[in-house]
């Protein structure tokens, strides 16, 4: 098993799929000659040429739609949108075309595209480069949303997404491309649906996704060492459709739930997981579920304020302590 960085894992998935299938292409701004802002397509231009590794103009709605149109004829485009903040510009094509075309054509056409994009807040990129948009994508029928928290997931989810007949949005993270982790040498496909218990525990379940899985794991260590509380950590790598059974199973075991999310609380992963808990296992609860979320503001530029706007490990620990005390 090799240790790869998140970007290397994504690059490997691209490379394997492009080598296998001449209809797999990738496209986006600066992904070809320049190798990609986050190196996720490094070297592919030289290997597969300009027709399959497309440096696009800065036309997010246009080139996303181009990928969708090509996918109607069996092409498998992996579309990189340099930052989710720019994905707003492509919403018409993603929501109105890709997510709906199969439905409104009575099943005749399908748009098997993959849109990859880094979300999340990095370091002082300001309000227009720090959005967390997974909540927007996960509410759309007809679109799959996954969000890898490890290099292994980043590799396996992209492999499965490319083979999937549905449009898939992969929410990556600006700060995670250099994260290292083990990725099996053997080719594998990560399930596009489900969740994973990444730390077993008995007292409380911490639900995280993408970067917040790591915050939850750090909080769980603090809780275990300093407070004798054993938190279970569940990685919600699939945001649409959310793993109802997995969520209910863990809550039924620990009887307490806290959702850790990098985004603002309104209409988000936390509120959706809470609704599922209510619907699936309300009577298993020993305490009201809580969310640890960002402050409901656009992300500030100032370093101190930026930090203050996001949830921290300490916030997770405090939330657990307040919940256990009840």
């Amino acid at each position, binding site marked *: 098993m090799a240790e790869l960085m998140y970007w290397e894992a994504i690059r490997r998935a691209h490379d394997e799929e492009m080598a296998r299938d001449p*209809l797999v292409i990738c496209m986006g701004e600066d992904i070809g000659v320049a190798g990609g802002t986050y190196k996720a397509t490094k070297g592919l231009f030289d290997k597969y040429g300009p027709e399959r590794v497309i440096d696009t103009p800065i036309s997010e709605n246009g080139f996303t739609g*181009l*990928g*969708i*149109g090509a996918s109607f004829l069996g092409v498998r485009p992996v579309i990189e949108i340099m930052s989710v903040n720019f994905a707003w510009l492509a919403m018409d094509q993603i929501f109105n075309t890709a997510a709906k075309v199969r439905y409104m054509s*009575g099943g005749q*056409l399908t748009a098997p595209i993959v849109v990859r994009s880094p979300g999340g807040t990095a370091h002082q990129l300001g309000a227009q480069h720090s959005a967390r948009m997974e909540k927007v994508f996960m509410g759309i029928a007809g679109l799959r949303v996954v969000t890898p928290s490890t290099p292994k997931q980043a590799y396996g989810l992209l492999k499965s997404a490319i083979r999937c*007949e549905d449009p898939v949005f992969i929410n990556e993270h600006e700060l995670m491309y250099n994260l290292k982790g083990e990725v099996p040498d053997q080719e594998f496909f990560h399930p*596009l*649906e489900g969740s994973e218990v990444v730390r077993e525990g008995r007292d409380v379940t911490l639900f995280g996704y993408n970067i917040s899985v790591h915050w939850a794991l750090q909080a769980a260590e603090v809780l275990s060492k300093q407070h004798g509380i054993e938190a279970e950590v569940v990685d919600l790598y699939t945001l649409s459709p959310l793993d109802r059974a997995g969520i209910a199973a863990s809550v039924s075991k620990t009887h307490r739930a806290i959702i850790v999310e990098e985004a603002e609380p309104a209409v988000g992963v936390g509120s959706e997981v809470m609704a599922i808990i209510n619907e699936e296992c309300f009577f298993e609860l020993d305490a009201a579920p809580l969310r640890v979320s960002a402050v409901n503001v656009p992300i500030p530029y100032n370093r101190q304020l930026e930090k203050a706007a996001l949830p921290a490990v300490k916030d997770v620990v405090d939330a657990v302590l307040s919940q256990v005390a009840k």
Partner: protein
Amino acid sequence: MEVDLLKTMLRDMLLARAFEERAAQEYAQGNIAGFLHLYPGEEAIAVGVLRAAEPADYIVSTYREHVHALVRGIPPGVVMAELFGKKDGCSGGMGGSMHLFDRERRFMGGYAIVGETFPVATGIGYAVAMRRLPEAVICFFGDGAVNQGTFHESLNMAALWKLPVLFVCENNHYQIGTEIHRHSAVAEVWKRACGYRIPAKRIDGMDVLAVHEATVAALEQIRAGNGPQLLECETYRFRGHSMADPGSYRPKVELQAFEDNEDPVKIAIAETVAAYPTGEQIAAAGSGNIERLSGHLQQSELLTAAQLEAMRKEVAEVVEEAVHFAARSPEPAMEDAQAALDCNRHDEVLI
């Protein structure tokens, strides 16, 4: 031009007119709901363009696409059933008037977001280019769509990568209810293509022969690998934007003038009934050529008045049968809706 093709195009236009007028009646009776955008006045474009296309070409259209679908060969009953929202409709009742699809006929859809179609058509063109096939994509749009960013984004990419796309503007001079000089700084749509070095031409969209001829030439260029082309077809819609729109913003005299002198069906009749004139004849006819061509009606031997009448009767029967087919078709069930959403999820690694 071949006589058979002339007759075919005339029948297409008569059918189109009859179908749309009947759709309006069915809407009034409550059998069709939602938005209904009708095509009378613009028939020469769909007919002229699509009769010049090959079965292997791909068609991308807007929400005013019933006639494109009919000319492409989707049976009238199947189109009407979709307008009725029935299970036998070409989109299984899941699409409606604005979302007609027929994968087999490469009718890649009617889309209802203005400007949404440009990137989609360009992408289909990209896939065609990757396959090195002599196929083309035909993208219909209105004059109102050219102020969307996607128009410029797509023209740029199509030209940059020499994609086989024919952009066909159905310039009916109104974006919903706003006249073109009030919505566009440059009212000549063809000029915009010049900014992307795309060969473009403005033609009389009321004249099916002119449209056909221009399309043949444009597709020839596209198939030769010379990249995209744009045709601006000047036309006029006789009805409002949709059935919800009385079209009261348009001067009565303007509408009347088009209906009296520019009706593409009348023109096509004149052209078919009379032999298509040579260039010299047109030049000799001068500006009043429509009336002069009509004058040939009696002398022509291509199509007699009786044959024309028989053609009208035949399309009326086709439309009548289409309505019966639609009325008899069952309603789709919620399971059909779910199946349409899920039907292609056959990849076993997913779940």
